[in-house]
């Protein structure tokens, strides 16, 4: 069975060919993409994943609660940090973030963060969530970086 993996990333539109295409072409993963929090939650509701890579700056999608959180932060992805809020909701079952029960069975070692933020800027959040896999999006990353991140999460290696 191929590992089932999820990339939650709104700017995938920019990185689609560079980063996602090698994952599809490799045929090694059952690869899924969600480009906003609503779509990600829809996927997480119906199935479990061996590895989930999350961006920090995510748009809310159509769900009214995620939309409200986004609007409360000035409708700004940088301020809203919905990726971090999604992780808190999933791991800590924080109902202040969203009134619905999050899907069960998530642990920090299934998760990784792949974002433009510096590690230092979100280190406190990562520590609070217990997430060790982090990769900063910078220029010059190899095309297979996403495959590497998924492998790291699945093999439980630090990154």
């Amino acid at each position, binding site marked *: 069975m191929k590992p089932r993996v999820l990339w939650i990333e709104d700017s995938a*539109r920019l990185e689609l060919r560079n980063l996602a*295409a090698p994952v599809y072409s490799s045929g090694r993963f059952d690869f899924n*993409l969600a480009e906003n929090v609503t*779509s990600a939650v829809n996927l997480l509701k119906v199935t479990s994943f061996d590895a989930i890579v999350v961006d920090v700056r995510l748009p809310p999608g*159509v769900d009214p609660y995620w939309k409200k959180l986004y609007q409360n932060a000035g409708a700004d992805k940088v301020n809203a940090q919905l990726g971090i809020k999604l992780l808190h909701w999933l791991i800590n079952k924080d109902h202040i973030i969203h009134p619905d029960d999050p899907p069960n069975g998530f642990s920090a070692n299934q998760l990784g963060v792949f974002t433009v933020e510096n590690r230092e800027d979100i280190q406190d959040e990562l520590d609070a969530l217990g997430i060790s896999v982090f990769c900063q999006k910078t220029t010059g990353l190899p095309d297979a970086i996403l495959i590497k991140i998924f492998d790291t999460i699945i093999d439980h290696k630090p990154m």
Partner: protein
Amino acid sequence: MHPQEIDIPFDPIITLIVFLIGVPALVFQSMSPDVRRIFFERRRLFAFLFGLIVFPVLSALVVSGIGIYTEINSNPSAGASAAEHAVRWIIVLSTLVVVILIVAIYFPLRYGRRQGVLRLLEREILWNLWLKGRLPEEAVEDIIDLGKNAESPQEKSMVLQTIHNLVLRTCKHRSYTGDNLETLILNLHEIVIVDSQPANLENFRMTAEILQAIAVARKEIQHVADLQRTVKAVSGLGCAALMKFEFGLEIDNVIMSFIQTLSLINYIKPLDVIKNQHIHVMTDVSEALFEIGSLAAEKQRDFITVAALDKLVTILCQTPMTKELPPHILNELSADVMGLMAHIWSEGDSQKEFVRRRMPDVQECLGLSISRILGKACFHYAENSQFATANKLAQMAKDLKLKRKPLNN
């Protein structure tokens, strides 16, 4: 009291009341044709007439009547001053002006604008849902019409947001069995695909999310009808997006959200009672991926094609029920995989190499030789009158026979 002593300002009162009667005509004129039709064809005339004409005019008559009554009954000899008289009529006339302002400002906002009508329809639908557990077809059709005729992408987006809310509420309702959203799903595409208007990507994206919401909203459904309709809608919208938009990073992303929705439907674990029906949903998903993938191949949208093929191979080889699938279902799934491979194969040499790399996965999971798998797929498409795909499969088989050795390496 002598009649000549009564001083009632009839002129301004009559002018204001006549103006009040004329306001509905102004509101009527300002309505867009579809909004007007909803009011006048769909039994909402009473609310319109009552809200816009009867209630304001009655209010104006009552206010004027009170003014006239107090004027008649005031006793000038008891020292009713001119100031008192003036204040009385200032109050009456101001009240009339306020009624006119309410009618002229509030009612056009409430009834004249698409947003206001949308809110009324949403309330009506939710009320029906609460009472009967079903969506009233007529009101749903009205919402679809509002979406179809919306003049801007923002207005369409407003309609889609309302539909999303209705979908969530319906699917969470205790009486939802998986078969209540027919009108909505079947007509959803008409909102985003209207030939008279330029297509809007964001609205395609929102539609994909609505369809996702239908797919995942409740697990304990008893029917798969809505799921099957959802698959058809996703397939239609995915193909329409490929046809309507030129190549671009953004559009690929939107089409990916349709592919992702299909993939998500495949992950849903059915209850035992609908297990057999759910198998047919799988074949619908597979067919939809084939349709989007083959169209993308034809239009040289390689990323979409590769993603669709990857999903198809995953469905065929990784579905927990694959081993238990009836042979005819397995044949359909493998035919879709091979059919898409044949479309990719026909596009060029590097595509051929890509197909060669993915073929062993299929061979391994079906436990059959490639020539046998190709033969079966070719027969399937010929039998279904899809001769173009059958021909491409035949050509691929021919090419592979010529180059059998490299494949076995």
